[in-house]
C-alpha cells in the first residue's frame, strides 16, 4: 500500500535525503523544509521503499503538498 508523505507546513525544500528505491524505516529522516527561519525535518510515517520523490531542493511547497510516496 502506498503512503503519501505530505508537507507539514508551507516552505522551501532545503534538502532531500532519500532517493527513489531507498529502503526506509518509520521515523527515518526524509527531507528538510526551510520555513519559519528553521530547517524542519520531515520523518517517514512508516517503513517501506521510496517509490517516488516529487520535490527537489529549492521547490516551494504548500502545506499538505505531496512530497514523496512510500510503498
Amino acid at each position, binding site marked *: 500500500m502506498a503512503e503519501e508523505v505530505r508537507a507539514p507546513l508551507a516552505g522551501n525544500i532545503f534538502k532531500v535525503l532519500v532517493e527513489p528505491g531507498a529502503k526506509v524505516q518509520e*521515523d527515518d529522516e526524509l527531507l528538510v523544509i526551510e520555513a519559519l527561519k528553521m530547517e*524542519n525535518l520531515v520523518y517517514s510515517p512508516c517503513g517501506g521503499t521510496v517509490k517516488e520523490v516529487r520535490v527537489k531542493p529549492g521547490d516551494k511547497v504548500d502545506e499538505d503538498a505531496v512530497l514523496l510516496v512510500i510503498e
Partner: protein
Amino acid sequence: MRPYFEKMPAFGKELKENRLARTRDSRAKLEEVEAGIAAARKAREQVGLPADAINKRGSLTVWQRLEALVDPGSWHPLHSLYNPEDNEEGTTNVVDGLAKIAGRWAVVIGFDNKVLAGAWIAGQSENILRVTNLARRLRVPLVWLVNCSGVKLPDQEKFYADRRGGGTPFYRHAELNQEGVPILAGIYGTNPAGGGYQAISPTILLAHKDANLAVGGAGIVSGMSPRGGFDVAGLEELIAKTRDIKERPPGRVETHFGETGFLSRVYDDEKGVLEGIKEYMRAIPAYDPAFFRVAAPAEPRLPASDLYHLLPFNQKEGYVFDDLLARLVDGSEHMEFRPGYGPEIYTGLVKVDGMLLGAIGNRQGLLPKGYPEYADYPGIGGKLYRQGLIKMNEFVTQCGRDRLPVIWFQDTTGIDVGDIAEKAELLGLGQSLIYSIQQTEVPMMLVVLRKGSAAAHYVMGGPTANRHNVFTLGTAATEIYVMHGETAAVATYSRRAIKEKDSARPLEPIAEKMNEMAKKYFDTSRPAYCARYGFVDEIVELKALRGYLKAFAGAAYQNPASICPRHQMLLPRLIRG
C-alpha cells in the same frame, strides 16, 4: 514510592543509521569547538611561572595542590576561561570548581600562585562572588586554597573599591558562616592585606609553617609614612627597613598559631595542610547519598556519544530534545509531566545517580497542527507559547513543593510576539515564571544547549535567577544574545533604510553596517566569548555533561536545608493521575 521510581517509563529512540551518517559533519564541527575550548583551558592552566620554578622554591602550584586534595575523577572545573576585565594575565587568578574531598562534595577555589604570587586582579572578586554563591545555593562547604599576595597595586582602581569590589567576598564569607555553610581554608605563602582577610574570613584556618597572614605585609609596613615624594636618602632608609622586615614578615605562624591562635593547625609539609582539610571535610554534616536515592544509580540505556549526532551544530536545524535528555539520565527513564499540553516544552521527573530531579527543556521542530491554540500561525519549537509557559509555572511550583532540584535545558529563540501573543498573556506568563522560580527554595542548574535568547533566556532559569541558578553550562553549540544578529540589524536599520531610499541615497553603506552588526553579534555570542564574559560558568563537552549533572545532584542532596518525604510528594501522583 518504589513503584513510581524504581522503574520509570523508558524514553528516547535509538539513533538511526541515516541520521548517524548525515550528522558526521556536525559532530566534527562540535568536536572542533570542544578542542578549541580544551586548548584554551590548557593554556589558562599554564599562565605565569612554570611549575618547576614554583617547586624549586619548595612550594606546590595551585594545580598540584588541587590534584592532591580532590578525590580522583571528581573535579568539575568552572570559570576556566572567565576573564571579564580582559586581564593581560588571561585569568582572574583564581581556579575553581565542584569536587569531592574525602567523599563529600565541596566548592573548591584557590589562588593561582604562579601568577603574581596569587594577587588580586580585575574580575577576581566577581569570580569569587560566583563561587561563594555556588556554595550558598548548594549548601556545601567552600574550600579555599589561600595563597594571595594582595592587590596587584598598579591596577587597584579596577577592583579595590565599589559595591562588588575586592572586599565583597569577605561579607559573603560572613553570610555563609551565618547560614551554616562552612568555609575551610588551607593557607600558604604570604597573605598580606587583601590576602590576610582572604585567610582570616573562613571558618577553619589550617596553615603551612611558612605561611603568614596580616593586615599589612612587609611592603606596606616598611614604606608606611608618605613624605610627599621620594629621594635617594629616603630610598636608602627604605631599603634598610625592608631588608629587616622581609626577614620577619608580620603575621607569621608563630604569631597566629602561637599567640592569637587564629590558626587551628599548622603543618610542616604542604600536603599536610591538604590532609587536614580532608580530615575536616569528613567532620562536616553530609547525608550518605543512599538517604535520598529513590532507585539504584544506573547509566543511561542510550550512549552519551549519540549526543554529538543529536544536537545539530547548525542552529537552524531541529532535533528531538527527548532523545537528547534520554542520553543524560539514569536508565534513559522519566516520568513526563503533562505530555501533550504545551508541546514546545518538556517537563518531567528524571533520576541522576539515583536521585530525583525535575527537568525542563525546549523541544524543537514543527509543533502539532493547531498549536498555539490562540493563533492562526504554526508553532515552532524553541519558542515559548501560552501553554508551555503555564506548564513550566506549574512544574517549577510543584518541584519547589516537593523539594526537587531542577535542571533547565535552553535552546530558545524567545517568547512568541505580536498582538495575538499579547492577548494570550505571554508577557504576564513569562514574568509569572520568574515569580514561580523565586518562590521556590530549590537549587537549579542550566544547560544552554544552543540558543539562549531574548526574555526566554531569563525566564527559563537563566543566570539572572540569582538566588536559584547554581551554575550555567554551555556547549560547543551555545550562542547567547538578545536576538539573532540579523534580526537586530533589521530592528536597528530598517527605518534608516527607508529614509535613505526616500532621499535617493545609495543603500550599500546601510547594508554594510547591517552586516557589521550581524558579525559583531556572531562574534560576541560564541562559546568561548560566553565563557570569558561569564554568560556561562563553563563550556562543557557533550560527553562530560552527565558528570556535571551528577555533581549537581550529589551536591544539592548532600545537605539540603529542607526535605519532602518521597511518599508525600505530589508531582509523581499528578503525573500518574
